[in-house]
């Protein structure tokens, strides 16, 4: 029984690790989309950031340099997205898609040019990564039956970016719903005309929103390549940006429900990893394919009726044009 409890806690711990990039990206998407800019390019920005982080950490041997580089590169791509959709009023989906394709090609090409390893960066040493932080008394607390392991397995032993992500959720909620900036941001996503009439720049607000999205995507990318992982591998985001987008929609463009959706996806992933090849009572061994397909089936089921109607910001996807 105690063993089962530990296994369950370890699964929850894995859930958190897997969900972190999703959470960061979902918050990034939240800022962008609440301001009225569809952000399909979460995936591409995260990939570019992961590459920049892996490359800089490998070249300088410093994880901080990797993180800063990742954020800068990601923000740069955000600005490209913003330039296309805010300044030039281009189609936001197409611009996002273009960034994803660009990132997918550029990372591999640059990777081959710099390291000649087939688009990978070298494996990073411990110093060039964000290592996990063991909280004080973790070992001692682990000995306390039942509750102790919660502290030892789940709360302790994460790297700093995990804490960043959790703080980001709280901060997102605070900024969006409790500050003047957040109020304007939401307004610009619902009714940009009103904001414009009030004498506030629609473009300025939207640019600020996509820059924040860039910063968050940058942290997500750095998490993948220099915190959770130890180096960049081509296409390493593996669709996480799109899953984050789905989580954002599940969460109805609200931080805490989006967090819950990310954790749900993470949990399914973690369970899938642990269920493979395990004898389950009554059913026997579950086929690999069935387990791997589980998260997607659940997505469809949940989307089909278990969550309420998803209502996007009203002005989303519409470039703002002043009256002619």
């Amino acid at each position: 029984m105690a063993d089962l409890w530990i296994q369950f806690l370890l699964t929850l711990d894995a859930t958190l690790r897997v969900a972190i990039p999703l959470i960061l990206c979902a918050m990034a998407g939240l800022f962008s989309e609440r301001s009225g800019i569809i952000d399909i390019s979460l995936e591409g920005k995260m990939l570019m950031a992961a590459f920049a982080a892996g490359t800089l950490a490998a070249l300088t041997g410093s994880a901080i340099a990797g993180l800063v580089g990742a954020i800068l590169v990601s923000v740069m791509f955000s600005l490209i997205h913003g330039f296309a959709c805010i300044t030039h009023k281009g189609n936001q989906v197409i611009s996002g898609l273009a960034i994803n394709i660009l990132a997918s090609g550029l990372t591999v090409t640059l990777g081959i040019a710099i390291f000649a390893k087939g688009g990978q960066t070298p494996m990073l040493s411990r110093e060039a990564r964000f290592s996990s932080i063991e909280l004080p008394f973790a070992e001692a607390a682990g000995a306390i039956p039942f509750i102790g392991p919660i502290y030892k397995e789940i709360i302790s032993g994460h790297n700093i970016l995990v804490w960043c992500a959790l703080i980001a959720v709280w901060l997102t909620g605070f900024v969006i719903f409790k500050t003047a900036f957040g109020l304007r941001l939401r307004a610009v996503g619902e009714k940009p005309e009103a904001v414009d009439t009030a004498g506030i720049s629609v473009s300025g607000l939207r640019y600020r929103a996509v820059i924040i999205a860039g910063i968050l995507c940058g942290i997500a990318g750095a998490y993948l390549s220099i915190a959770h992982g130890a180096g960049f591998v081509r296409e390493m985001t593996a669709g996480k940006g799109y899953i984050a987008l789905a989580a954002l929609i599940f969460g109805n463009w609200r931080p805490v429900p989006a967090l819950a959706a990310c954790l749900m996806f993470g949990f399914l992933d973690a369970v899938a990893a642990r269920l493979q090849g395990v004898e389950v009572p009554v059913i026997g061994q579950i086929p690999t394919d069935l387990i791997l397909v589980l998260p997607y089936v659940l997505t469809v089921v949940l989307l089909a009726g278990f969550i309420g109607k998803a209502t996007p910001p009203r002005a989303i996807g519409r470039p703002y044009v002043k009256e002619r």
Partner: protein
Amino acid sequence: MKFVKTLAIAAVSAVGFATMVQAADIKPAVIYDMGGKFDKSFNEGVYNGVKKFTDETGIEVMEFEVTNETQREQAMRRMAERGATVILGVGFAQADAIAKVAAEYPDKQFSIIDVSWLDAPNLRQYSFKEHEGSYLVGVAAALASETGKVGFVGGMDIPLIRKFACGYVGGVKAANGNADVYQNMTGTTPSAWNDPAKGAELAKSQIDRGADVVYHAAGGTGLGVIQAAADAGKLAIGVDSNQNGLAPGSVLTSMLKRVDVAAYETFKDAMDGKFTSGLQALGIAEGGVDWALDENNASLITADIKAAVEQARKDILSGAVSVHNYESTSSCPY
């Protein structure tokens, strides 16, 4: 003066003609796949074989590095048009392209590595007995494990990877009949080869269950496996090329796939007029698979492990042990 010049030109062209006649016998070409020829892995292995051939024979090999999926077929056709007589494709991703181009140029010779299911009179296919190599590292894993539990992380769930897994389980059970082997596949789509985050998670889940040696056959995903094992202070086993140096002290050994042997053999046979079509399966006996022992893992491989693995290799060579090939029955008896 003019006479001397004419003579010189004649001499040069005569020399040129002579080498041309020699080289006209064989004009080899190789199409590297995504990753490029210095990828420290599969393609670089082929490059080493090609280089050995050029060094020995002085014959230049035409090269092309594919950088996206659509280039494979074009590159192959262009090589054939440029007069290549023997064309080597690298990796199963080029199977469709080579099947098509080989049919269009029946008088040219084609060879492809890691493919076994095609059939053309001018096509040679190389497959590797990965199950034999995996058996060897399985023996090493079982002996290096203190918990009696070892893991395997595969990339995409295809019969080829099941073949790795099955040989590995065979080796583990041969060395320790009570050992547990945890097996995980990363996914069912090609993205499963490039998901180190998931690889690390799978390895961690196995380590949480008690595994202390984890073998990967998962390409880029495997880097996550190696890193997760290193982070947890456990051991990983590399694959394809020698990955012992990726995390020195944390990689027990690597299962080597000697693609250089296949590349060298293709061109050498073509040069000697011994090119044959059909399937060539390279195992331990043919020098096609092996385990890696170098200064990075010398401290991990004890005398006992070394002796046991060498014994296993001898047994396979002598036929005393026959490692089951998953692909022949689509099931694993171990």
